[in-house]
């Protein structure tokens, strides 16, 4: 019963989205669309609006994922090396942009970015997306390094590897999976971001969620549903990748 409820509550919105994206002349009180059409999908693939927004979202997602890795790894590693109140304070600092309401974060960043000339630019939006993503990444890597056996680094150095060689030849290869996870985390933070994009990007930066938002507002339900389905793709891909990776989990050391 409980699982049935979960299945309905989790799947129903997406089933409805799928129906909306292909349904035609679907009015109350019809339970299912009387006709189906692939028009909105054709529009999506041929029109520049959603394709362009998808491309922008992909670029921002990839950039944000990179930030989550490149900044999150060293920050998380440094936090893991701290002890006592310093570690707690550091973790709280990393948690702040994650816990803060996105609209509050967006408002704060908007004021700063406008002064820096970054308002309404792709770079500005990327940096804005990176703020919560770095927080997520740092917290994620804090967890990773809390259980990472650092003796393997000592082993490497004792065998003659410099700190740099140890990082690139031992630590980094062992962190392939966590890095992929952190990248996916950063990507998803950016992919679904609306408040930061709206406030920092102003009007010029059009991402997929922004387009879907405006399609919903303008009543273009079928196209909005199609765009929303497209938004789901990376999340489902990330879920599948995590499941796949979990089934072939590597050990950190033997």
């Amino acid at each position: 019963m409980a699982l049935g409820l979960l299945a309905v509550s989790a799947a129903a919105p997406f089933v409805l989205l799928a129906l909306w994206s292909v349904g035609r002349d679907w009015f109350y009180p019809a339970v299912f669309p009387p006709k189906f059409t692939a028009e909105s999908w054709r529009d999506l693939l041929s029109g520049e609006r959603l394709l362009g927004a998808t491309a922008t979202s992909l670029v921002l997602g990839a950039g944000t994922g990179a930030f989550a890795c490149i900044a999150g790894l060293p920050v998380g590693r440094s936090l893991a090396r701290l002890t006592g109140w310093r570690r707690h304070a550091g973790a709280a600092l990393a948690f702040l942009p994650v816990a803060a309401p996105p609209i509050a974060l967006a408002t704060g960043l908007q004021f700063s970015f406008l002064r820096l000339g970054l308002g309404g630019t792709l770079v500005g939006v990327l940096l804005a997306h990176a703020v919560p993503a770095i927080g997520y990444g740092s917290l994620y890597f804090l967890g990773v390094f809390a259980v990472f056996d650092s003796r393997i680094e000592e082993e490497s150095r004792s065998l003659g590897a410099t700190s740099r060689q140890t990082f690139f030849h031992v630590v980094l290869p062992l962190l392939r999976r966590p890095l992929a996870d952190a990248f996916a985390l950063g990507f998803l933070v950016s992919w679904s971001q609306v408040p930061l994009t709206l406030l920092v990007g102003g009007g010029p930066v059009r991402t997929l969620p922004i387009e879907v938002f405006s399609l919903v507002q303008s009543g273009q339900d079928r196209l909005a549903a199609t765009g929303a389905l497209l938004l789901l793709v990376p999340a489902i891909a990330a879920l599948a990748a995590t499941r796949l990776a979990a089934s072939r989990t590597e050990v950190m050391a033997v």
Partner: protein
Amino acid sequence: MTESGLKVLRLRAPFGTAPGLENISFEVAPGERLALVGASGAGKTTLLRAVAGLGPGAAERIEVAGREVGTLPAERRGVVYLQQTPLLFPHLTVGENVAFPLRVRGVRGSRVDAAVGEVMEALRLGGLAKRRPQSLSGGQRHRTALARAIVARPPVLLLDEPFASLDPVLRHEVREAVRVVQEAYRPALVLVTHDLDEAGALAARIGVLLDGRLAQVAPPSHLFTRPASLAVARFLRLPNSVPGTIRPDGSFDSVLGVLPLRAPAAPGPGVAFFSVDGVRIAPDGAIAARVVELRYRVQQTTVVVALGDVRLEVPLDGQGELSPGIEVRLAVHAGAISVFPAP
């Protein structure tokens, strides 16, 4: 000692809340095996890590193959420190693991293949090069870790409790692997262990670490028969101790009779320590004793005998059938008995 693989001069290192290591000096020649023994928390691992450059500590001088390395980072010391549990790199194959020290030194091509092949052959790892460490048995992992440690021919190899928590079969396998490595590559080898028998069987010399200081460094035969102090004798847990009196004429008077002292000691109450070899059962022995118990062991069966209140453990060397209650005669080997003033 003219040639030095490792020379440590006045090393100090903190550990935990204890005072730490103080004034530790020792040398190990190339090809020599030194075992460091001491109670848990004596600082054995701290000492190895300080020498390897992986832990805190400072020395007046740490010399490796004649070169001062005390201020160098771990990777430039020429000292390989092997932890108790072999930590192989799980993302590399066995062959890649063994080749790692050569690769990070910039060695490439056939030289790597030759060196890796040679050491893997010596350690019976041939045919395992393509395997992942996760698929190896416990013994193979230890041997791979040893192969990787020695492949770049470091002048000094430090082994931290290499036999701890191993079952007897694996212990024997790893011990033999250490012998092979040491005889083939001749590094100065320092081995930390809490097992005195292991130390005696494997090392040319044993260093006893007590209260942060190196109390004695001596060959096993010397250490076990001539502990330098009461503290060392107690640490060695020599099976026999006999109370008595140190006399002004330089002798020791006890149930064993009057024995000459090997070294001068202040007159007064004293205690003699000795291993099972200090006293033996002999038909013409001067001391009468009664058999209390026989202790059967694979290596050496011993007999516990009583001299009044004192009990001694002595070797059973083909004296025929002995059983509790039988009277025996004992002969004392004075040279194997160490006497110290009683605390």
